[in-house]
């Protein structure tokens, strides 16, 4: 099976069970997000996928090859970018990429050409001759990405690739990853920044306490942020929907509206527009990924920021 497949993967360190039961399939041509709280075992799982750590039980397959049985074959098609990539401090960005290429059995000329190509691709061309020691955190991230891509891998494992990147670089990273996915690369990204991850991933794998749990859909009841081109949005929204004012939350001047499901959200928007309110923005207050992630961690609590105590069901009908 192509892509990244994990079946019942388990790994413990002494008495600590880092990964208990990881089962998922990241498909080629798609970007899969690996989401989980701190200490959920994401890094351990990525280390096993990257052929650095052997699982205690279960099977891993990278484009059909088991990294325990044939690590060399896996490494030929795998690009790995760890969360903290150690850069060789006194080597320049260009030398770092060339060295990595040489370690992938590329010829000197091939590695040099590829290094120039990648420096331009990740936007480090201006810093090609700077020693890695003087690069900023974001620039080091770009260098790490370039190093992971040096041998044109068909599977990319990225651990927090966007951390330290400025907004422009994040957009570039997103475009680059979408591009690679379009070329058929399997991409697995682990990240904490869920709102950002949501913009780029096709699929999501949730890892909680070492186990992959069902990728729960975002809970139906969600909070929407309503921004009006008018003062006192909460009151206006409450009046338009015929709701008691205390049921509409406030956040930085915007109204927070809790709706039961998507149909209710549509109905509420229609009601607001029909009431002649100048609606500027009407969107979930929280990304779907974030909402389902929080729902996963705290199944008993309602998702979202401070919201009115009861869900105004009648709001949609008004």
């Amino acid at each position, binding site marked *: 099976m192509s892509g990244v497949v994990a079946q019942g993967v388990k790994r413990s*360190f002494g008495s600590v069970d880092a990964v208990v039961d990881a089962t998922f399939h990241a498909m080629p041509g798609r970007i899969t997000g690996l989401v989980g709280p701190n200490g959920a075992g994401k890094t351990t799982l990525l280390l096993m996928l990257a052929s650095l750590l052997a699982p205690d039980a279960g099977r891993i397959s990278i484009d059909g090859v088991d990294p325990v049985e044939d690590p060399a074959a896996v490494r030929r098609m795998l690009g790995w970018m760890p969360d903290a990539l150690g850069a060789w401090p006194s080597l320049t960005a260009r030398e770092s990429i060339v060295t990595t290429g040489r370690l992938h059995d590329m010829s000197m000329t091939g590695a040099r050409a590829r290094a120039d190509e990648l420096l331009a691709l990740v936007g480090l061309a201006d810093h090609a001759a700077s020693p890695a020691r003087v690069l900023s955190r974001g620039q080091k991230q770009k260098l790490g990405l370039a190093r992971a891509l040096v041998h044109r891998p068909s599977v990319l494992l990225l651990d927090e690739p966007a951390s330290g990147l400025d907004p422009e670089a994040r957009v570039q990273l997103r475009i680059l990853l979408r591009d690679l996915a379009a070329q058929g690369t399997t991409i697995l990204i682990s990240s904490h920044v869920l709102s950002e991850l949501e913009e780029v991933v096709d699929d999501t794998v949730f890892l909680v306490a070492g186990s992959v749990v069902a990728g729960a859909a975002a809970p139906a009841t969600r909070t929407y942020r309503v921004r009006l081109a008018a003062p006192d949005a909460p009151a206006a929204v409450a009046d338009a929907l015929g709701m008691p004012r205390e049921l509409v939350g406030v956040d930085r001047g915007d109204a927070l509206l809790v709706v039961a499901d998507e149909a209710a959200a549509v109905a509420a928007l229609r009601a607001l527009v029909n009431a002649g309110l100048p609606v500027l923005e009407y969107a979930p207050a929280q990304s779907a990924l974030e909402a389902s992630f929080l729902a996963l961690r705290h199944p008993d609590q309602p998702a979202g920021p401070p919201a009115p105590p009861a869900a105004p069901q009648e709001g949609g009908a008004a």
Partner: protein
Amino acid sequence: MSGARILTIARLELTQRLRSVGWYVLLGIFMVLLLGITALSFLVFSSNDLPGAGVFSIIVNFVLLLVVLVSPTLSGNAINGDRDAATLAPIQVTAATTGDIMLGKLLAAVATGCAFLLIALPFLAVGIFGGGVTPGMFFVSLLVLLLEIVVVAAMGVGLSGLIARPLFSIAATYLVVAALVIGTLIAFGLGGAAVRTPVTHYERGWDESGEPICDSWEEYTFEQPRYDYVWGFLAANPFVVLADATPTEFDVDGYPRDMFGQITYGVRMAQKAPGSERWDICDGGYDSQPSPEEQMRDTVPSWFVGLGIQLVIAGGLFAGGWSRTRTPARRLPPGTRIA
């Protein structure tokens, strides 16, 4: 395993080292020391008709001393230092195998040791110019020096793979090297002095009037340390290996010409059991002493045993470090962070 990858890793190590100023300061200090040592050596061996051999031997021994003192710092954190800096795992996920990484690191550590030898080359040339350095002495001593550089480097790289923390692996490398350099001396000295046998001294001297007494022996007994039981400890000493392996050159009186020969002579004499002593005025005083060259004839060389022991220790540590660095890793040294 691939030569190109091993060279890439070795070059990576060396490039980083060559770009640090401290390294050049160290080599500069070493050069100044060599200058002083060469000058003093010429003074020491000035009475010799061919002082060059003595100067050469002292410089080679000094290079070995420096290798033993500095090499553990440079090789003792090769693997775990990279792991700490998170630069090991990115190499491990490339096509570079564990063997490539281990051998590349070893090559870099050996090359660093050889840098000391390289700096010493002009001084060795001065020694050769001084006369007395035979081709056998030249090639054998430098070859053994090279092997000692490899042994210390392999111990350092091996221990850096076996022990998680760089500080401890460097200390452990120093301890292993010190066990060979100083430990063997301590074992030899204490061991020999702890085991003693009575030795009888026979004497025919003069009576009060100054006439020789030739009809009776005076004898008294005292204890002598038995270095002949423990001389084997010295065999594992790097300096002894270097000296013992190098062919000894004697001057016309049968005395060793250089420091290699002097060390060898000392070690070889320790092989001899203390025997009864005789001082006989009726027969010309003490038994006439044979020259060192004659005394060494019935002693045995030991350098290959010592070098063998060193290679076994270094090889064992290196293999241990190798197996601990294998990926995908099953067991990790306690406290290890893989990436």
